[in-house]
C-alpha cells in the first residue's frame, strides 16, 4: 500500500480536472494530528457540484480499470473512499478550509482538527469517541463550538454528542 503513490495519483486527477479539490479526512487525518494508529482506508473528501459528478468519478475509475472494492477505489494498492461534498455543507467547508501540507515533496491537504472532530461526531462510532477526546486537546474550542452550532440538526445533535463523550471520560 502506498499513501504517497495514492496522493500523487489524486493530485494528477485533480490537475486533469477528473476530480475537484480534495482533502484527507478519516483515519489518516487522525494520524496527522495524533500518534500513528492502524488504518486501512484513505478517506478523501472531494468537492463535487452534484451527485452525477460523483457517479462520473466512479465511472472514470471503472473505465480506467481501477479495482473497486465495495465503495473503495484501490489506488496504488490503497483502498480510497471518496466522500462527496454533496453529503452535507460540513464536507465542503472542511475541504475549503483544509490545511495545505507536503509529505516528502508531495503536496496535499488535510482537514482541520475542528472539522475532523465535527465529522467524527457525525459518524459517532465507539472508536471515533476515543479519538475525539484526544483531538480536543489540539482544537480551538471557540471555532469548534461555532462549527458544531452551524452544522448540527435534530438527527445529529453534535454538541449534545460532544457533551456525552466528555461525560463518559
Amino acid at each position: 500500500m502506498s499513501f504517497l503513490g495514492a496522493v500523487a495519483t489524486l493530485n494528477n486527477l485533480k490537475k486533469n480536472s477528473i476530480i475537484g479539490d480534495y482533502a484527507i479526512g478519516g483515519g489518516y487525518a487522525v494520524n496527522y494530528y495524533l500518534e500513528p494508529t492502524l488504518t486501512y482506508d484513505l478517506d478523501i473528501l472531494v468537492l463535487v457540484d452534484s451527485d452525477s459528478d460523483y457517479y462520473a468519478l466512479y465511472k472514470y475509475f471503472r473505465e480506467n480499470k481501477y479495482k473497486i472494492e465495495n465503495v473503495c477505489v484501490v489506488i496504488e494498492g490503497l483502498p480510497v473512499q471518496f466522500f462527496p461534498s454533496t453529503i452535507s455543507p460540513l464536507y465542503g467547508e472542511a475541504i475549503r478550509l483544509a490545511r495545505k501540507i507536503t509529505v516528502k515533496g508531495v503536496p496535499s491537504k488535510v482537514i482541520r482538527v475542528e472539522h475532523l472532530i465535527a465529522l467524527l461526531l457525525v459518524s459517532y462510532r465507539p472508536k471515533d469517541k476515543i479519538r475525539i477526546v484526544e483531538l480536543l486537546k489540539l482544537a480551538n474550542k471557540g471555532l469548534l463550538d461555532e462549527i458544531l452550532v452551524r452544522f448540527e440538526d435534530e438527527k445529529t445533535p453534535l454538541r449534545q454528542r460532544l457533551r456525552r463523550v466528555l461525560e463518559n471520560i
Partner: protein
Amino acid sequence: MRKLLYVKDSEEFWKIFSLEREKRQKKLANLPFARKIEILEMMQSDAALLKESKEANET
C-alpha cells in the same frame, strides 16, 4: 519506564504507567507526518502478515 519495575503499590504503578504512556503518545504525535506514514505502512504490513499466518494456522 525502569521506575515501574520497583513500584509495589498498584495505584502508583498505574499512575506512572499512564504518565509514561502519555509521554510516549505525545512524542509519537509530534513526529513529522511522513514518518507517521512510514510507521503506519509498517503496521499495515505487519497486520497483513499476522492475518496470513492466522489463516495458515486455521487451515
